[in-house]
C-alpha cells in the first residue's frame, strides 16, 4: 500500500497554515513528521484523517482518494481523550465495535493489547481513575484495536515516562515489521532517528526537507568536517586565508570546519597539508537529527 499526500494547502481565515505539502509512505515504513510548534504537523495529520478539508491537493491511498472510514486506519489524536466515566474495557469494546468488529473480537483484541501494554489490572477501572500516562496507553489500545493497516500517531511520546516510551517504541517497531504504514509526529528526535526511514520536516507550512534520514545526513555531512589535531600550527590562519571554509570553531576534540558549498573535502586537505599542523584524524561530521531539525527550522521568517 502507498499513502500519498499531494500538494495540500490549507488556510484558516487569512492564515495560510499549509502551503503545498507533499510526501508519501509505503507499507512497512515509518514516516516521521517533524516541525516546530505551529509548523502544520497536526493540521497535516487532521487533513489525512479527513477532519479538515484541504483547500487544494489530495490524499491518496494506492492512487485513490483515501476514505478514512473505509480504509483501516488507527488514529491517536494529539488531543487525547476518551470517556472518563466509563470503564476501560467498556469503551475499548465500543470503539472496536464502531470500527466494525464484533463485540467478542473487540474484547479479545483489547485484552491482548492490554496484556501487551501491562495494563490488564486496569481492565475494569474507570478511565478517569488512571494516571495520564496510563490513559495514553489506553488511547494506544483504541488506536490499534482493529489491527489497522495505517497507524497515525500525533505526538505519541509526549507525556510518557522512559519505560513506557520504550514500550511504545517497541510497539511501533512491531507495527512497521508487520508491514503497516506508520506516520507519526514527534519532538523526540532520538525516537524518530531510531526507526523512521523517512522524515519530513515542516517549517511554517512548507516542507523544509524530506527524504530518507541517511540521505539527508549524508548531504549535510559533506559540509562539516572535524579536524583532530596533534599540533595546531598555523592551520587556523591558513584556513581563514583560504576560500574553502565558511566558518571555524574550536571544539574539545579539535577544529570543526564548515565548508563552503562549492568546496570539497579535497580542497580542505590541500590547505591542511600546506599548513604546519600535525593531523591525527580527519572526519566528516554527521549531524544529529536534532541539528538537522534546528538547521532547517531556525531560519524562520
Amino acid at each position: 500500500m502507498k499513502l500519498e499526500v499531494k500538494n495540500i494547502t490549507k488556510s484558516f481565515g487569512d492564515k495560510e497554515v499549509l502551503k503545498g505539502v507533499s510526501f508519501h509512505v509505503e507499507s512497512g515504513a515509518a514516516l516521521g513528521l517533524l516541525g516546530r510548534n505551529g509548523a502544520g504537523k497536526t493540521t497535516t495529520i487532521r487533513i489525512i484523517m479527513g477532519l479538515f478539508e484541504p483547500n487544494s491537493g489530495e490524499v491518496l491511498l494506492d492512487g485513490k482518494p483515501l476514505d478514512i472510514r473505509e480504509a483501516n486506519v488507527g488514529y491517536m489524536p494529539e488531543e487525547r481523550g476518551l470517556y472518563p466515566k466509563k470503564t476501560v474495557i467498556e469503551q475499548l469494546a465500543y470503539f472496536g465495535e464502531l470500527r466494525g468488529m464484533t463485540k467478542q473480537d473487540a474484547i479479545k483484541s483489547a485484552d491482548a493489547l492490554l496484556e501487551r501494554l501491562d495494563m490488564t489490572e486496569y481492565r475494569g477501572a474507570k478511565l478517569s481513575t488512571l494516571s495520564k500516562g496510563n490513559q495514553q496507553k489506553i488511547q494506544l489500545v483504541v488506536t490499534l484495536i482493529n489491527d489497522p493497516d495505517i497507524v497515525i500517531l500525533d505526538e505519541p511520546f509526549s507525556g510518557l515516562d522512559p519505560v513506557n516510551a520504550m514500550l511504545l517504541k517497541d510497539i511501533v517497531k512491531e507495527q512497521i515489521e508487520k508491514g503497516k504504514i506508520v506516520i507519526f509526529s514527534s519532538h523526540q528526535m532520538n525516537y524518530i532517528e531510531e526507526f523512521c526511514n523517512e522524515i519530513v520536516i515542516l517549517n511554517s507550512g512548507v516542507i523544509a526537507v524530506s527524504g530518507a534520514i541517511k540521505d539527508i545526513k549524508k548531504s549535510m555531512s559533506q559540509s562539516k568536517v572535524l579536524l583532530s589535531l596533534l599540533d595546531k600550527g598555523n592551520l587556523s590562519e591558513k584556513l581563514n586565508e583560504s576560500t574553502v571554509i565558511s566558518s571555524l570553531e574550536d571544539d574539545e576534540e579539535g577544529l570543526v570546519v564548515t565548508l563552503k558549498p562549492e568546496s570539497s573535502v579535497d580542497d580542505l586537505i590541500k590547505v591542511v597539508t600546506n599548513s604546519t599542523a600535525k593531523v591525527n584524524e580527519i572526519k566528516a561530521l554527521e549531524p544529529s537529527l536534532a541539528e538537522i531539525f534546528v538547521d532547517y527550522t531556525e531560519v524562520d521568517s
Partner: protein
Amino acid sequence: MKQFLTVFKFELLGQLKNKIAIVITAVIVIGLALVLSYPRFNIEPLEDKHLKEVALVNSSSMSDEVLKPAFENAFSKEAGYNLTFLVPEDELKTLVLNDEYDAIIEIIGPTSINYVVKTVGLYDYETSIASETLKSLYQYNTLAEMGLSEEEVNQFFSSNIDVNTIVTGKDQTTSFWYTYVIVMILYFVLLIYGQFVATSVAGEKSSRAMEVLITSAKPMNLMFGKVLGSGCAGLIELLIILGSAIGFYKLNEDVITNDIVSSVFGIPTYVALMTILFFILGYFIFAFMYGAAGSLASRTEDISALVMPVMVLFMITFFVAIIGMNNGSVDELYFKVLSFLPTFSSMLMLVRICMGEVATWEIILSVVIQLISILGLGVLCSRIYRAGILMYGNTPKPKDIWRIITSEAK
C-alpha cells in the same frame, strides 16, 4: 446500520445505568406510591380528629330552642367542630385568649353576630357558617311571621335550577387537569433529556473523545444513535413512572376521592396514545436542537449559554400552552397557527387534541411537518456536530454558527 446500532446501544445503556436518572426515577415512583396510597392511610376514626372548639353565646332576644338545633346542625362533629353553649358573660375575650375555645360566636340580634377569635386565618369558614345559619333562621322566621306554613317555606328554600349541559365538543372541565399534567410532564421530561443530550455531546468534546469517534464512525450515525438512544432510555423511564402511577392508582382507586386525580387517570386511551406520539416527536425536535447546541460548546461550562436560545423557545411554547389552556383560547386562531410550527407542535397540538376541536387532517399534517423537521434538524445537527468538533476555545458567535451551517451545506 451496525454502527448506528452500536452507538444506540451504548447511549441507551449508558443512560439507563446513569445513577442520577435511576435515583430520579426511583424518587418519583416512591413519591407516586406515597401520594396515591395516602388516602388509604388517612381514613381515621372521627374521635381522633382534632375538633375545633367553638362556643355559642346567645345575647339576643331569640330563643335558645330555635338557635341551638340550627347551630348544632351547622357546627357538627362531622364538619370538625365541637360546639358548646355558654351563658352570656363579659369576659369572652379571655376565654379565647386562654385557649379554652378556638372561636366564640355571640348572637347579638337576629341579624348580627360578634365573632371572637385569636387570629383570623386565610381560610376562616366559621364566620360564614355562622352568618349563613343565622341568615336562614332569620329568613325562616320572617317568612313564617308573614304567614307562610313551614312546608311552604321549605319548598321556597329548596327550589333548585336544573342545569343540563349538552357538550358538543370537548368538556374542558374534565380534560383540563389531565392536559395540565401531560403538559407539565412533557415540559420536564423534554427539558431534562434535552439537557442530557447536550451534556453528553459537549462531554465528548471536552473529554476530547470526539476526534477518535468522528474518525471511526459517521457523524450521522453518532448523532442519531445518541439522540435515539437517550430518547429510548427516557421513554423507558417515563413508561416505568407512568406504569407505576397507573398501578398505584388502580390499587387505591376505591379510596381516592380527589376529582383532579380522577381526571388525570381518566385520560381516554386515544389521548394517551397521542401523548406518547407527540412526546416522541417533541423529544426529537428538541433533542436535536440541544445536540447542536452541545456540539458548539467546547467545555461543559459553555452549555448553559448555548442552550439558552433553545430553552427560551421551549419555555415560550410551554407558557403559550398553559396560558391558552387557562383562558380557554385553545381553539383560537393564534393557537391553531402556532400548533403547526414544528417547535410548538409537540405541546400545542397535543393541548388542542386534549381540550379543543381538531380535525384528523390537522393532526396528520402536524405530524408530517414534525417528521420533516426532525429529519431536517437531524441532518443540520449532524453537520454542526461534525463541524463543531474541532472548534475549541471561544463560544461561537451567531455569525460563526451561520458560517458552519452554510459552508458545510455545499
